[in-house]
């Protein structure tokens, strides 16, 4: 039975991600964030549920839609926003941006700008763990888009033949950029492909944080007992387009409405309200709101990366 504190924490994290993304979209429209980022709106339960099943020594690998994973793994909100604002105090000293935030202190091997590229990297983390004889588990967040990329089945096969302690958390949000899953796969249940590689696989309701948590816990136990890997396909849906400049015109309104009725925050709130009160929810939300505003202030007041420091840093590439 999940404790009240645990459910409160899950809700807090999901709400934090929701507000983080929403505020960052606003910052983007104000011209304070450049380039692209890929909001995790609507998918919060997957990152939070999965990371809740991990220990400090475990690893995650993220995707281009990585803010949720980063936050769920315990990143500093301040340093994340500072990075999005390309400030020197950001995770990557302003050199990386949204798609390249990694937080090695929390075992987050990084977001990735190349769809699918994180899958072999995560398998490698599992390989290292296996060679050292340690029991770290690696959760590899990946997408329906990545499933059709060459390295995906390749890396899945490597994890299988070497019995690696990795969980492929396939976030199926039904769109690979703008292309719906029905157009790119005969069978939209992507997890069934794993059977061909002899891998234990299943699907889960990606909008129910407890369902994701329970399934990931199963995967962690499997990996720790040397019986990995595992594939978990978490079914979900984006609340917005592919990236912050994509209005998602290709997403039918009625389908979006259906999925919003099952908003992960609604479900997460329901789980908490079995033990707690709406006042406590409000307190959690207000605290998270304050944290984000304070982080934005920190980022706003942070200096830009110095040119001199940058030029010195890139001397290692002089050759």
């Amino acid at each position, binding site marked *: 039975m999940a404790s009240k504190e645990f459910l409160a924490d899950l809700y807090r994290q999901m709400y934090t991600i929701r507000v983080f993304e929403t505020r960052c979209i606003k910052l983007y429209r104000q011209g304070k964030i450049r380039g692209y980022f890929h909001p995790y709106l609507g998918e919060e339960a997957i990152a939070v549920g999965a990371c809740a099943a991990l220990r400090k020594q475990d*690893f995650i*690998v993220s995707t281009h839609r990585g803010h949720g994973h980063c936050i769920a793994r315990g990143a500093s909100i301040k340093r994340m926003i500072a990075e999005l604002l390309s400030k020197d105090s*950001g*995770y*990557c*000293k*302003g*050199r*990386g941006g949204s798609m*390249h935030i*990694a937080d*090695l202190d929390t075992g987050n*091997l*990084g977001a*990735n*700008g*190349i769809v699918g*590229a994180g*899958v*072999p*990297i*995560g*398998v*490698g*983390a*599992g*390989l*290292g*763990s*296996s*060679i*050292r004889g340690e029991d770290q588990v690696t959760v590899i967040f990946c997408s329906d888009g990545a499933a059709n990329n*060459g*390295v995906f089945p*390749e*890396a899945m*096969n*490597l994890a299988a*033949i*070497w019995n690696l302690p990795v969980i492929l958390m396939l976030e199926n949000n039904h769109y690979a950029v703008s292309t719906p899953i029905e157009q790119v796969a005969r069978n939209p249940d992507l997890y069934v492909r794993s059977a061909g590689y002899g891998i234990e696989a299943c699907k889960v309701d990606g909008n129910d944080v407890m369902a994701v948590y329970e399934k990931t816990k199963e995967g962690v136990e499997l990996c720790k007992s040397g019986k990995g890997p595992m594939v978990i396909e978490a079914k979900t849906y984006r609340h917005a387009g592919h990236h912050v400049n994509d209005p998602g015109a290709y997403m039918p309104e009625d389908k979006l409405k259906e999925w919003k009725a099952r908003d992960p925050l609604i479900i997460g709130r329901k789980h908490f309200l079995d033990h707690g009160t709406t006042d406590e929810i409000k307190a959690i939300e207000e605290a998270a709101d304050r944290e984000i505003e304070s982080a934005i202030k920190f980022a706003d007041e942070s200096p830009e990366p110095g040119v001199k420091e940058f030029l010195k*840093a*890139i001397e*290692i*590439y*002089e*050759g």
Partner: protein
Amino acid sequence: MFREALNEALREEMQRDPKVFCMGVGIGQRGGSYKVTVGLLDEFGPKRVIDAPISEASFTGAGVGAAITGMRPVVEILFVDFSVLVFDQIINQAAKFRFMTGDRGRVPMVLRTQGGAGNGLAAQHSQSLEALYYHIPGLKLAVPSTPCDAKGLLTAAIRDDDPVIFMEHKLLYMSEGPVPEGDYAIEFGKGKIRRQGTDVTLVAWSNMLPRSLAAAEKLAAEGIEVEVIDPRTLVPLDKELIVESSKKTEHLVIVQEAVRRGGVASDIASMAQHEAFGYLDAPVEIIAGKNTPIPFNLNLEQLCVPQEEDIVAGVKRTLGAGG
């Protein structure tokens, strides 16, 4: 022997550091297609000498992930021609992880591969592709030409905390040469003058180095003394050594097996003529592979990459071209 020297480096580093492991197609049970990894599986076991499926992109990516999380992988891509399958993991991932993470993440991985023509393996198994990796910030590039350097450079590469492309040559694996006993690492960015000379500076790497030394002997018989420089690593490059020698001899020739267009020789020539412009008595001469895929027919194959006669002719051309 060159391949034995590589084997020694791998064995000694794996003995010294449990984080070092090898991965590639056929490297374990078979000891490698070029016998570089013979005996390692017996000594270190299948966890550290891994026979991978033909999944270059993903096992190299796995190398990246293992390196990021504390291991020191030596990944083998059997032919440099196949390494283009791995471009994303090498160029977008390994080369850039340190930079993108603001210097916090490191990828201490060595990617061993080999290229070169001369065995009749034709277009997709005979290329010299060092220029592709030379062009990418974040990658170091070693091009050993002797057994001594093979061991010393591979040792240094394994100890380096950043990704190294270790480019071997298929015709050098059985070449002989002295290899010092014990533990030694050759510093990257320090070239070597293989032959002292006064009339012309010649820069060559990998299999073009021994071929250039042979050409230099022929030229010596005609009274032309060539100073032959082996850069040993192309990134970092020992620019000073090349420029100082060019200023001394006032003539520079660069020999490269790779296709001429967009090759490393052009970049070295550009750098050297800029630094030594006032000293050079002739334009920098580049002797390089023809702009073509490598043909199968032996005669045509040899035609397409610099031979001794081409090097001799090139040196004479540069000496005749100026004062």
